[in-house]
Every structure is written in structure tokens, then in C-alpha cells.
């Protein structure tokens, strides 16, 4: 320790904190404008004073973004918000299960050529999705055509009112062009590389001796997974679920190409349309943007540590 150890604040420290706070200002500037604008009343909203604090707190813009404005013929984002939930939650769960099983096989049941298969799968992670977009759209359109008789059949079902939801469920999740189900399948398939990678690396850290012990006790492929690997998988699942949820929630390219109707569009597409529309005021666009950002921001705030781990693993994803 040096001699002059009494705590005097050195000018360089002040400069250091000044720069850090300045940088924080840059990163928070868009958040400030989003929040401030979203909380202003209609009377208070004015482009000339967009940096001013709201005179009174109001949820006008929020409600307008959520519900739409019938007088202008705009529909709100509530439906699209729910679409994104209906898309992201099952797609995330399916992706995590598929990734976990693939990772288990590639880490603990290596067969001849397993490393080659792993590389083959991994390559799919970083491809620009433009290079598969046209055949993907045509494939989903073909599925839609093939499944149309089935859908019409379902439409015609005479079911009691309390079973109506089954009909809706089939219509929502039928894997076709323009449905949430079609988009969901696409996200699960193109999520295979990243989820497999994360779980494979995670399971590689679990010592083989644990599995050997299980094998001696007579456990097979599924028994070892169920009783040895799966109970140890929680942190891996958390990382994968957070990563997949945020990337599916925020995804735009697949969504804009594969959902052609407002009824099944996720929130990113609806927000993009909202922002391109001249009849929607800027404050409503801001409230819509905040709405679209809220779920993933909340996850970041609550589970930031796991978020970062997913980011480091998934940084090369398409």
C-alpha cells in the first residue's frame, strides 16, 4: 500500500464517473423518450416539447396503442401481443425439449460420426435466413394447401360451446402459411442448432461417472435422462428458455414473410406496420414500442445473469 492512503477523491476518478454517466445517458436516452411520451396525456403530447416531462401522468397513448382507435379505423396491438405469446411460449418449450435431447445424445451417446453431425447442425445457426426464405414460404404454402380439407372439416364440426376452444386451437396451430403454428414450427426447426449447442456444452460438463453409476443400476437411455441428467438440467433450461423466448419474441424476418394476415401477426410486425402508418400519432407509436419491448426487458431485469450466458452462446445465430 502506498503511503498517502487517506481517501481523497482524485480528479481522475471524478472524470471516470463523469464519462460513465455520460455513456449511461446515451443508452438511456431512448428509454427516457419512450417512457415520458407513453405517460403523457393527449393534451400534453407535442412534438415541440417532446423532451419535457409529462404535466400529469396519463395512460392515453398506452390505451390507444393497446386497444386501437375505432374512429381512425386502427386496430390495437393487444391481439398481436397475445399472438407473440401464443407463438413464443410453446415454441420456446418445444425448442428447449428438442435441444435438451439432442444435446444429451451428442454429449453422452456419441456414435460414429457424431462430431460431424454436430458440425452439420451447428452450421445452420449462422446462415442468413434470406437463403432459405423463398423455399420456406413455398413449403408452408404447400402445407396449407394440403391441410385445407382438414381445416374445413374442423370448421364444420358440431361441438358444444364449451369445446369451441379445441376448434380454435387447431386453427391457430395448424402448421401452414399465415398461421401461428406455421411460424412456431419454423422457429423450432431453426432453433435446433443453438439449443443443441447450449445443451451439448452444458451436458459435456456433467461427469460420465454419474451416468456409469446409473447404468450399473440398470438405467437405459431414457432412465439416465429422466433420473440423472434432467434433474441437473435446470440452469441449462433457464438459459435456453430465456434465449429462445427473447429471440422469438423479437424476431421479424420470418414473421413478416410467413404471416400475411393481421389476425396472426406477432407484435414486431404489427409495430413495424404501426410505425409506417401516417394516421397513427408518434406518441402511440412510442407506447407501442414500449409495449413490444416490455416482456424481454422484464426478463433482462429479473434474470440478467442467465440472459448474458445465452447471449454469449447464441451470438452467431442467424
Amino acid at each position, binding site marked *: 500500500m502506498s503511503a498517502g492512503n487517506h481517501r481523497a477523491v482524485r480528479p481522475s476518478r471524478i472524470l471516470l464517473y463523469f464519462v460513465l454517466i455520460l455513456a449511461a445517458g446515451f*443508452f438511456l436516452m431512448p428509454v427516457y423518450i419512450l417512457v415520458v411520451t407513453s405517460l403523457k396525456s393527449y393534451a400534453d403530447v407535442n412534438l415541440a416539447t417532446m423532451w419535457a416531462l409529462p404535466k400529469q401522468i396519463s395512460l392515453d397513448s398506452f390505451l390507444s396503442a393497446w386497444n386501437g382507435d375505432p374512429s381512425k379505423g386502427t386496430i390495437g396491438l393487444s391481439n398481436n401481443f397475445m399472438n407473440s405469446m401464443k407463438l413464443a411460449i410453446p415454441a420456446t418449450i418445444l425448442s428447449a425439449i428438442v435441444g435438451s435431447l439432442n444435446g444429451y445424445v*451428442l454429449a453422452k451417446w456419441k456414435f460414429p460420426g457424431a462430431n460431424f453431425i454436430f*458440425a452439420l447442425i451447428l452450421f445452420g445457426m449462422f446462415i442468413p435466413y434470406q*437463403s432459405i426464405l423463398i423455399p*420456406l414460404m413455398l413449403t408452408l404454402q404447400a402445407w396449407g394447401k394440403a391441410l385445407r380439407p382438414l381445416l374445413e372439416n374442423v370448421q364444420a364440426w358440431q361441438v358444444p360451446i364449451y369445446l369451441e376452444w379445441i376448434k380454435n386451437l387447431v386453427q391457430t396451430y395448424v402448421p401452414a402459411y399465415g398461421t401461428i403454428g406455421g411460424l412456431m414450427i419454423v422457429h423450432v426447426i431453426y432453433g435446433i442448432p443453438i439449443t*443443441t449447442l447450449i445443451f451439448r456444452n452444458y451436458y459435456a460438463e456433467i461427469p460420465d461417472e454419474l451416468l456409469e453409476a446409473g447404468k450399473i443400476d440398470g438405467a437405459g437411455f431414457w432412465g439416465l435422462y429422466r433420473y440423472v441428467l434432467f434433474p441437473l438440467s435446470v440452469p441449462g433450461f433457464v438459459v435456453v428458455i430465456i434465449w429462445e423466448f427473447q429471440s422469438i419474441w423479437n424476431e421479424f424476418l420470418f414473421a413478416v414473410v410467413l404471416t400475411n394476415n393481421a389476425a396472426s401477426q406477432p407484435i414486431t410486425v404489427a409495430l413495424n406496420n404501426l410505425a409506417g402508418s401516417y394516421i397513427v400519432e408518434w406518441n402511440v407509436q412510442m407506447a407501442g414500442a414500449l409495449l413490444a419491448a416490455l416482456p424481454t426487458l422484464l426478463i433482462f431485469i429479473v434474470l440478467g445473469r442467465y440472459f448474458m450466458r445465452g447471449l454469449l452462446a447464441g451470438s452467431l445465430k442467424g
Partner: protein
Amino acid sequence: MHWRLNRDRLTAILVILPSVIAILVFVYGFIGWTGWASTLNWNDMMPIPKGAILPKADFIQLDNYIRLFTVDQRFQIDLRNTIVFTVFFIGSCLFLGLGLAVLLDQKIRNEGFFRSIYLFPMAVSFIVTGVVWRWLLNPGSADSPVGVNQLLVNLGLPFLQSKWYTNPQALFILPDSPVGQFLHQVGLSAVTTPNFGISVAMLSVVLAAVWQMSGYTMALYLAGLRGVPDELREAARVDGANEVQIYQQVIMPLLRPITLSAVIILGHISLKIFDLISAMTGPGPAFATDVPAYYMFDTVFRGNHFARGAAIAIILLVSVAVLVVPYLVNAIRTEVHR
């Protein structure tokens, strides 16, 4: 060790088989399809015959590619924009990311708090970023500035106002400048045209993209800095190095692999950038903010130029592959050796 098939091993293979088939079809098969389509004369709506996967269009070899690189003005502007975007985006992210990481490495109180603030934009969609920055960088008019321009006026810095993404100009080397005349003499007069310039509007998109990704670059560097053993710094100190020298001569060389990863990650984002352009500017004035990924989307899904779009997609794929494959091969090799 001899591998022999048994019941469990068969189960394992059957479990991974559907994923492998899905990847073979949806990644490799579809890329093959796109590559094939890019060699056809398929640039308007054509029916696909029953049982076929492609329409009956003439095979025209590489004509779609040749057209893009020789006569297609829009694509050449796009290439210029992509290069400008990539260079400025990567440069700014590395500079800001490394700077912030080094500052945060100085035993900062509330380090976690600052880190979260720099990093949170990663959690947000490029669409949200685009919508917000569209309003922040909306220039407004001279009398009633909007967004950042308004803020600059409020802060007493009105001379810093800019037309941001509405500026259709490109900065380029003028033909009659000394450098321009030199280039003309050595036969490079093409370089003194706007096609080899810097699209000013693109820099606004870079600003938004840097806002989103520089915190991530910071996190990469910070993880690297935390990996530098304290003994190493201590040893340098004992040898009489000051703090700046320690960073220059001890720590920076150790961070080189991180810079490489960051360049590859950021580079592959910038080559494919689409969402942000779509939400923030679209193609912009005189295609000032157009990029190949946006052109591909536009020309296929709005213009029915399937083969041209396929050709652009393949060019994108090749450029990303050139960047990522060597890195990936190396990563897998070390992984397998471990």
C-alpha cells in the same frame, strides 16, 4: 474402444434423427433450392407445376449474378452501403465497447448497475430500436426541430444539428481534388464517384445499431479483462510499468482473440441487417440506406423477382460463410480436442 450398436444406442440415434433430417431439408436442401433458383430466368409470377418444386423457367447460368454486379445500380449502392455500415458499425462498437469495459474495470462502485444500463438494449428487438430512433433522428424542420436536434438546441448546441437519415448525400473523393487527380492518373477514376462514397444517411442507422450492440461488445471485453490474472498485472507493476503501459503491453495482446470474436459476431450481424433498416428508414432517399437483405425482401416478396432475390440471398450466404466458417471450424476443432 469399439462401438457396437445396442438398444440404447439405437434409441439415441432415433432421438436425434428427426432433428438431423429437419436440418438437412430446411437448411441444406433449401439452400440448394435457392442456389438452383438463382440460375433460372424466374423474375415474375410463374406457376409451379404439380409435383415439381420449381417453375418451368429457363436455365440462364449466372446471368442473375452478372446483372447484379454489372447493370443493377441499386445493388451496387447496396454493396457500398453494406461496406460503410460494416466498417463504421464494427469500428464504433469495438471502440465504445473496449472503452467502457476498461473504464468499468477500474473498481467502479455500482459496476453492475452501469453494466446493465449499457447492456439492456440487447434485450430489445431491432424493430423497437428502429421505431424509437426514427423519431429521435427525425430532423423536423429548421424552425421546429424534433428529437435529437431539439435536444441539441435545448442544450445550446444548435450547430450540431443534422439531417440524419434524410440526408441523401454521399461523401466521396472529388475528382478535381489532389487525391482525386492522383486516382485518375493511376486509372482509378471510378473511385471518385458517389458509388465509392460514404452514405451520410447510413451513419444514422449505424448510430442506432451501435446503441443496440456496443454494450454487448463491452460485455465480451469485460469478460476478457476479468480473465486476466491479477498476478500478471502485479508482475508488470513490479517491473515498473504504469497503468497505461499495463493496458497497452500486457492486457491488450491478451484481448486479441476477443476482438476477433467480436468482429465476426458484429460483422455477421451487419451483413444481414434487415429489421433495423425496415423499421427505421426503409430504402431511404435514393437508396441511401438500402442494403442487400432489404433489397432481397423487396424484390422477392413485393416484386416477384424470385431468381434475383435468390441470387442476392446466395451472395449474402457466401459473404457470411467466408467470415464465419474458418472461425467455426477452428472452434469445433479445439472443442473436439478438449
